[in-house]
């Protein structure tokens, strides 16, 4: 943790610095294409994309709808396989993995956060957070203790038995983030995580992501809001299935929050 924190701090002080040079690539895409067939038309959702994302990075993926950003996210989330090319996550090429192996990868390496939270109805927060552990191999024994810890981490330690209907939007998203964190993932993958939240709550959620990133988790956020993307250290812009912009710099926002935590 110290070394990761040191790297992050170093990158913040002497920004812009390419994180790839300081840490091994956690995600490596080379010549990835994704082609959908719709009737007799073929849609090239991703067109020969190559990309590396380093461990500990904080990336925002941007682009208009239809730009290929969601397709990229689905591939990084191991929910789908590329049509051609190679995509390695944590050193393993998902193109060659079975659907069970992909499920285990999603379970242990990736934490998902969604725009609509996707909490289970009529289920208390603690059980929401436990859910991924039920599918873990091997399954840990201390399910509840872990879930408690994660809920405390996102500031909901006193609301473990609340149902989604008893929580505000921001609180629901915090439960979803605790759920994403429960299995100690290397990647936190968030799809428009603030799309259903007001500005103030959005900012709080993004600060939480900044804190988690400062602790070493690689955070990837898909968004079309530049305000939200400003929290990230690296910005990838997609258009027509290609990356048209890849900027790295010190994050404009949340740096203080992250720094406070690290120091």
């Amino acid at each position, binding site marked *: 943790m110290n070394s990761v924190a040191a790297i992050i701090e170093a990158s913040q002080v002497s920004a812009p610095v390419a994180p790839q040079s300081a840490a091994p690539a956690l995600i490596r895409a080379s010549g990835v294409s994704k082609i959908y067939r719709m009737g007799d038309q073929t849609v090239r959702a991703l067109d020969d994309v190559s990309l590396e994302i380093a461990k500990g990075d904080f990336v925002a993926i941007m682009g208009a709808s239809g730009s290929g950003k969601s397709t990229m996210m689905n591939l990084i*989330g191991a929910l*789908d396989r590329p049509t051609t090319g190679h995509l390695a996550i944590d050193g393993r090429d998902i193109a060659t993995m079975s*659907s069970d192996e992909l499920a285990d990868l999603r379970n242990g390496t990736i934490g998902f956060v969604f725009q609509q939270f996707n909490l289970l109805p009529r289920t208390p927060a603690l059980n929401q957070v436990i859910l991924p552990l039920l*599918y873990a191999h091997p399954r840990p024994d201390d399910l509840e203790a872990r879930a408690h810890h994660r809920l405390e981490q996102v500031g909901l330690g006193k609301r473990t038995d609340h149902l989604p209907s008893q929580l505000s939007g921001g609180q629901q998203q915090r439960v979803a983030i605790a759920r994403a964190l429960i299995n100690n993932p290397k990647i936190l993958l968030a799809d428009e995580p603030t799309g259903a939240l007001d500005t103030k709550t959005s900012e709080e959620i993004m600060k939480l992501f900044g804190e988690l990133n400062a602790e070493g988790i690689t955070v990837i956020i898909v968004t079309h809001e530049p305000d939200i993307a400003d929290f990230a250290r690296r910005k990838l812009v997609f258009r027509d299935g290609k990356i048209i912009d890849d900027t790295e710099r010190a994050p404009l926002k949340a740096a203080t929050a992250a720094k406070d935590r690290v120091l």
Partner: protein
Amino acid sequence: MTLFDSLAIAWTALRSNLLRSILTTLGIIIGVASVIILVSVGSGARVEVEKQIASLGSNMLVVFSGSSRGMGGRSAGAGTDLPIAEGDVAAIRDKVQGVIAISGQLNGSGPVVNGNTNWTTTLSGVHPDFATVRDWPVRAGRDFTPQDIRASAKVVILGQTAVKQLFQDEDPIGATIRVKSAPFQVIGVLAPKGQSAMGRDQDDVALIPMTTARGYIVGKSQVQSDQVGQLYIKFDNSTDLKDAQEQIETLLRQRRRIQPGAEDNFNVRNLAETMKARTEVLSTMTYLLAATSVISLIVGGIGIMNIMLVSVTERTREIGLRLAVGARQRDIMRQFLVEAVTLCLIGGLIGIALGVGAAAIVANAADWPVVISPAVIALAMAAAAGTGIVFGYFPARRASGLNPIEALRSE
């Protein structure tokens, strides 16, 4: 994912749609309940018939006079033709192979009086072999002896019901009672026998020697001097009853001088066989009816499948989420299978409770024998679970085959 997790999820899902879950299981409830009622009532009837067959006595043929075949439109009823006589008894004993016991039974009825107690019962004149032929031992006192028959002794053996009516708790052996006004000595009491196939209480009887019955009790005018009523013949275990039946028929046709081609004026029957045939018809009916309730299970199963498909559609997003957080396809498959089986087992349990209850009501109200066997209950539960697996499979497969991306995107 453990089975317990799957059960907990299934329970939550079913409870959140309680009314729908209950309505869905109605088909299963009705199917299971009707299987239990039909099989219980059916096997109760079969057990009853088997008991009656056993009470007839085993390896036995019955001979009675008259024709019941009704050919040519004329049938005067059994017993109106030339009666079976002592000569026939002797001839059958001597000439038919395998006979170990033979006894007539000449029936009448009349009042039996012990002191102030009066009871009208069946009076049966019998031979000393009667107890052996009918597998109906004398429980207390003694049986008739050949001497009793020769001397037309005024002795009587009472059935259980007659004893209860005449003596209550007293010891009847040695007592003198009046049978049709004449004094008779009670020499024995029969073991209990139960109801006959026709529902008559066989224990309501007073047995007296054949000769006494013929000369005295039944009424001289109606009785040919050596008739024996109907004739029960018991054979040893190695005798083929079909063979024996043919031998008796041939013998009696000779003795009665019946022309070839003419009808018999007597009947030789294997009552146990007749009853067995009736039991088989009964079982066939039971299983046919049970089969129709299987149709109800199938219809119920289709209902389950329908509602599970609805459930899969409604919960597509939830399935997408589960896949995203690491559920394998077989986890999803198992979750929905467990849900369908749980639904069916709950229906099965309710159906068993209703079925057993209804069978008990039938047993009480209609006085119909009912046998509720654990095997039938186990079978009904297995059928319910099987229905869940068969009809839950397709929806579960559909759920587990969902594309996680599309599932997450669905509304």
